[in-house]
């Protein structure tokens, strides 16, 4: 009953977030206890801890939420999720907010969308991740100066046989690509 009542009065942004998160209906049960922020290894770096974010979502502050750095501090460690007394899947909410921020052009403060894009582009093409391709493309296009610092690390990985210079392609890449195309079509993602 509580949930139904809350959903009837839910802000449009709250409904958007709930729809984008599996199990997202739990968001309305937030007690403002703060276990999430207290459990987060990066909580101190966040502009808004998750509980503040939930309050902002309730208050329909779409732009403020989606342009904050909060979800980009999330390392998917799931401490908040397992400790939340109201069983809100907080890590999944963070993923949903990342996706909404990217699609709304509000992802600021971070190279994470560029890293994700480079990673998934390589996956779509080869079916396997390609670490050398990922690192070289990501740094070259997004962090050229940081590339210098990565040099010695890359070299020590390479000399220990831990870095392949060419990608591995799966045999049935056409099948994987057909699955990806269909999923994109159904999900409406780019």
């Amino acid at each position: 009953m509580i949930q139904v009542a809350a959903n009837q009065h839910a802000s449009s942004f709250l409904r958007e977030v709930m729809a984008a998160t599996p199990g997202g209906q739990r968001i309305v049960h937030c007690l403002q206890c703060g276990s999430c922020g207290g459990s987060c290894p990066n909580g101190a770096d966040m502009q808004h801890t998750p509980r503040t974010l939930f309050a902002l979502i309730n208050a329909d502050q779409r732009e403020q939420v989606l342009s904050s750095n909060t979800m980009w501090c999330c390392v998917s460690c799931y401490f908040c999720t397992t400790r939340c007394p109201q069983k809100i899947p907080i890590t999944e909410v963070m993923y949903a907010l990342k996706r909404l921020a990217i699609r709304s052009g509000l992802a600021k403060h971070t190279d994470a969308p560029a890293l994700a894009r480079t990673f998934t582009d390589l996956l779509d093409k080869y079916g396997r991740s390609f670490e050398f391709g990922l690192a070289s493309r990501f740094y070259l296009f997004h962090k050229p100066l940081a590339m210098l610092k990565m040099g010695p690390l890359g070299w020590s990985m390479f000399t220990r046989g831990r870095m392949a210079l060419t990608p591995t392609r799966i045999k049935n890449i056409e099948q994987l690509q057909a699955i990806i195309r269909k999923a994109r079509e159904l999900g409406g993602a780019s």
Partner: protein
Amino acid sequence: MKYAYYPGCSLECSSAAYDVSVRAVAEALQLEFLEVDDWNCCGATEYFTQDELTACAVIARNLALVDPQLDQLVAPCAACFLNLKKTDQLMAENREIGANIHAALAAGGLSYRPGRVRVRHLLDVIYTDIGEAAVRRHVVRPLNGLRVAPFYGCQVVRPILGEDDTEYPMKMDELFTWLGAEVIDYPVKAHCCGGHMTQISESQAFELIRRLLQSAVEYEADMILCTCPMCQLNLDAYQSRVNGLFHTDFKLPIVFFTQMLGVAFGIELQKLGFGKEIVAATPVIEARLAEQTSDMQMTKSQ
């Protein structure tokens, strides 16, 4: 015992030491691991950042490719394990996403019934399916005197997947007690290594890595044991950069738990992928095992 095996991309190259030691230990324990034919990448955390449905569909292809004769799938990588398990659960519990994943798989001529395959992490397979008595029987070179810090990281123990305690996991601790090692009880064993944050925000990631190394060193660990390629990479490969940033002097070997399991089982170090770690692990292993041999000789001569 037969299982389908999903190595994941890291084990092909950057964490090849994990793959060779998994296979060597599996052989010693008579676990038959049959690699999923033509498996694809699980998408790590990156696909979920971008597109949830496609992330799940990409993962579900692997579940659909599991040999119909097999009903358990073993993943040694924490991220692969979580993604495979999460997708299977999501397909079972969420009708809308489940239907879309089915439709995407069908476009590739595949199908998968949620729950058909039980996704397992390797640590749980060894701890539960092999168990204490059988593990102890295989020990020919006990790790006596070696102080190990089991590091679980996040995704093997959280979210709640019923594998171990989410705050204070114990399976690796117990496993290494069976091997004769001195297992240190330090407070950060299930904390975060920073994951892909090393690529995005070094200041945030390096602080997380520093906390883990600091704690293990304060508890006088000889080495950290990992269950995840990302944790091993971050703690090992970034150790010198962390030292540079925080003016610390960490020189702590970071190895996969299967490598040390192999040592205890008497498998030669060369066959367990040693030498691929950036901070060399063999000196401390050889020193401790030599002390042990000389102790044994002294006991005998007394």
